[in-house]
């Protein structure tokens, strides 16, 4: 029991510092400058949302912070230590759920927990059930993945990402494929869970309103080369309602800047 308590202890969120990160990809149409000298600092427990048109490098930056890609130059520091590989302190929630269809719901959570030393089978089960309860799917421990709806899959994926008790959550357009009603429920859930188990969150999205609803700060990215074009604090109290006027006001501020930027670049705002 003590091992479980120890495992479920809230770990302090981490401070992330991105220092002069650049990344170029070679493509058939020549090199693409995905990130150009990006610097940014994220406070412990802060939720930073990154918005911007396709190809602005926001997902690349998220992958670099996850350790799934390496920058050409620059560094990412987590509490002062440079990141060089993926680690359980930084978990990722992908756009598709990335759940393993050959395992049931419980098996997916256990996959993450089995890779953690110092926990016996019973303790791992208890921890897994705790996180399933946290996302409201305690009754679905033995469901197969294909039996779940899109929203449920993302909840399980969130539980699996939370299970190793990371200090950073990296979310790459996790709700983009869901319908509007499901998405709004998930906004409430994310905020409730963040209240219970605070993490440093980086949230990549196309949806400006989603960013204003979830973020303490919204960063506007611009493409070619990928860079941060603007920064918008969202000093609203929580929990926030996706439909509230305050959220809409902040969203329109970001949207306005985005449109302005796109016009100055001679591009269409397609999102």
């Amino acid at each position, binding site marked *: 029991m003590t091992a479980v308590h120890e495992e479920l202890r809230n770990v302090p969120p981490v401070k992330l510092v991105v220092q002069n990160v650049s990344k170029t990809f070679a493509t058939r149409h020549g090199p693409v400058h995905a990130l150009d000298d990006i610097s940014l600092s994220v406070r412990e427990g802060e939720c930073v949302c990154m918005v911007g048109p396709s190809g602005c490098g926001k997902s690349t930056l998220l992958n670099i912070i*996850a*350790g*799934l890609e390496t920058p050409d130059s620059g560094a990412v520091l987590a509490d002062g230590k440079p990141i060089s590989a*993926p*680690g*359980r302190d*930084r*978990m*990722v929630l*992908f756009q*598709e759920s*990335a759940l*393993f*269809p*050959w*395992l049931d719901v419980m098996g997916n959570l256990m*996959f*993450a927990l089995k*890779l*953690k030393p110092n926990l016996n089978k019973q303790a791992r089960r208890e921890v897994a059930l705790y996180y399933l309860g946290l996302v409201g799917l305690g009754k679905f421990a033995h469901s*197969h*993945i*294909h*039996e779940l709806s899109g929203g449920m899959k993302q909840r399980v994926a969130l539980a*699996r*990402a939370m299970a*190793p008790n990371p200090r950073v959550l990296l979310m790459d357009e996790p709700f983009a494929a869901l319908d509007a009603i499901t998405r709004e429920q998930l906004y409430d859930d994310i905020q409730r869970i963040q209240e219970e188990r605070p993490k440093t969150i980086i949230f990549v999205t196309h949806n400006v309103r989603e960013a204003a609803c979830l973020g303490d700060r919204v960063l506007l990215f611009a493409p070619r080369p990928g860079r941060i074009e603007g920064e918008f604090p969202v000093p609203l109290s929580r929990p926030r309602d996706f439909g509230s006027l305050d959220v809409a006001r902040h969203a329109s501020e970001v949207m306005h800047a985005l449109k302005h930027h796109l016009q100055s670049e001679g591009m269409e705002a397609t999102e």
Partner: protein
Amino acid sequence: MRRVLSPIFFFGALVVAWEALVRAGIWSPVMIPSPLSVGEYFWRAGMDGTLGGAMLVTLRRLLLGYFIGLLIGLPLGFMTARFRICKDTLGVVALGLQTLPSICWVPLALLWFGQTEVATLFVVIMGTVWSALIATDHGVRTISPIYVRAAMTMGSRRLHTWVKVILPASLPFIVSGMKQGWAFAWRSLMAAEIYVTILTGFGLGQLLHYGRELHAMDQVIAVMLIIILIGLLADKILFSPWERFLHRRWGTTE
């Protein structure tokens, strides 16, 4: 109930039509034997052990060759999927040899190994290896890279990733590759047995061949029916359980 009755009725009608055609006497009974004489052959050859023995010999050759083929083909498929150099060398060889009908291996096998068990084994293995290799390679390549990335964030690396993620993720493809390999192995063995007389064992293919030599049409048809039956049973026994499992787990359509 209907699903049981309609095939029974269908095949019953087929046999009756067959018997009626034979009785009409349009064709010589040497060319088209009656179902009854085929049944008699079944009874005779079944009782004196000819059929059972031939089935045993054939199945032993088939299973041995097939499993050796899988044992070689599956790991090689993983290697061509994993290492570029293997894909550019071995992968090309596999693609080429897979297009070669397995019967084409028979002359070579005979010259190398003579009229021995090894010759048939070789032909069956050659029939299995390349299709199993290509299916595995294809399976590993088609799995979504997101699984590996997700596993890496959870702390999975190298061997753990291969055993716990890539292998199970490509299982549906591997099973269909194994099924294809089975079909190739079965066809190549029949070809080899009809073509090559091997004195150490008398298989179904040889029974078929001697049926022709002796003008024993009842034997030819009976052996063909048995070959069909074995193909169907193998599908039910070897692959159906896997496919049901995959269907339940992955939610793939059958």
